[in-house]
C-alpha cells in the first residue's frame, strides 16, 4: 500500500534536500525517487511553486557546453522548512500515539 504524499510534505522533502546541497533538476528527481514513489514529472511544478514563493532561487552553471540550472535554498525557504518539520513532527507523534510506532 502506498499512502499518497501530500504536497506540503513533498515541499518539505525538497527543501530539506536543498538544505544539504544545491541540486539540478534531474539529480533532485533521482534523489527523491530513491525513497518515494513519485513520477518523473512530479517535481517540475513543485520547484516552480517553491521558486514563486521565494523559498528557493536558481542559478545556471555551465556543464559540458550547456547550462545546468541549480536550485538553492533561501533563508525564507529555510524558515518554511522548519515550519513543515515542526508540523510533521507533531503530526507523526499524534499518529504514532493512536496507531502505535514501530516499537510500540
Amino acid at each position, binding site marked *: 500500500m502506498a499512502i499518497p504524499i501530500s504536497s506540503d510534505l513533498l515541499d518539505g522533502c525538497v527543501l530539506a534536500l536543498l538544505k544539504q546541497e544545491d541540486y*539540478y533538476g*534531474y*539529480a533532485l*528527481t533521482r534523489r527523491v525517487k530513491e525513497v518515494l514513489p513519485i513520477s*518523473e514529472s512530479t517535481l*517540475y511544478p513543485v520547484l516552480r511553486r517553491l521558486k514563486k514563493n521565494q523559498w528557493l532561487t536558481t542559478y545556471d552553471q555551465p556543464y559540458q557546453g550547456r547550462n545546468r*540550472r541549480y536550485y538553492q535554498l533561501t533563508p525564507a525557504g529555510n524558515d518554511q522548512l522548519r515550519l513543515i518539520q515542526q508540523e510533521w513532527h507533531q503530526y507523526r507523534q499524534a499518529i504514532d500515539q493512536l496507531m502505535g510506532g514501530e516499537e510500540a
Partner: protein
Amino acid sequence: MDTYLAELKRALAPLNPDEQSEVLAYYSEYLQDAQLKTYDECVKELGSSRSLARKILADYSIRTSDEEWETETGSGSGAKRVRHQVSSVWRMIVLIGLAILSSPVTIPVIILAITTLIALAGVAGAMVLTLAVLVVAALLVAVVMIVAGAGVILTTPFTGLFYIGAGLIIIGGFMMGLPVLEWAVMLIIRGVSKVVKRLYRKIRRPEKEGTHHEKNV
C-alpha cells in the same frame, strides 16, 4: 530527444513564451542529464509528450486561477470581471479534463471524473442562465410597464403614473441588486473552480502509485 521536445513545445502552445521556454529548458536539461537520446526512451521516462504537456497545462491553469482569486479585488467593471472568470474557469475545466483523459487511471475513474466535470459545468451554467433569464424578464416587464404607462398617461394620468413608477422601481431595484447578482455569479464560479481543483488533485494521486507499481513489476 529533439523530436520529443519539439512535440512538447507544440503541445504547450497555450502557455506564454516565457513559461514555455522555462518548461522546455527544464525538460531538455532533464533528458540530457538522464542521457536519454531516442524518442522512445524519452516517452518511457516522461510519458508521451502530449500527456506531459496536458499535465503541465492543467497545473498552470490551476495556479493561474489560484492567483486570480488572490488578486481578484482588482480592476475592471463587474461584467468584465465575471466574463473573465467564466472563461478562465472554463479553460481550466477543459485542460483538467484533457489531463485526466491522458493520465493512466482506470476507465471507470475517467468516466466518473469526466461525467462529474460535465455535470458541474452544466449545473453551474444552468444556475447562471437562470439568473440571467430572471434579470432579463424583470427588465422586460419594467420596460413594458413604462411604455404602457406613458401610453395611457394622457387619458388616465394616475394609472399611467402607477405603471411608470412601478417600472422605474424595478429598474432601480435591479441597479441596487447588481452587486448582489455579481456576487452570486462569482460565488457559483468560485465553487465550481474549487470542486474541479479538488477533483483533479484526487485523481492525480493514483497515477503516482500506478507508475510506481509498473516499475516494481
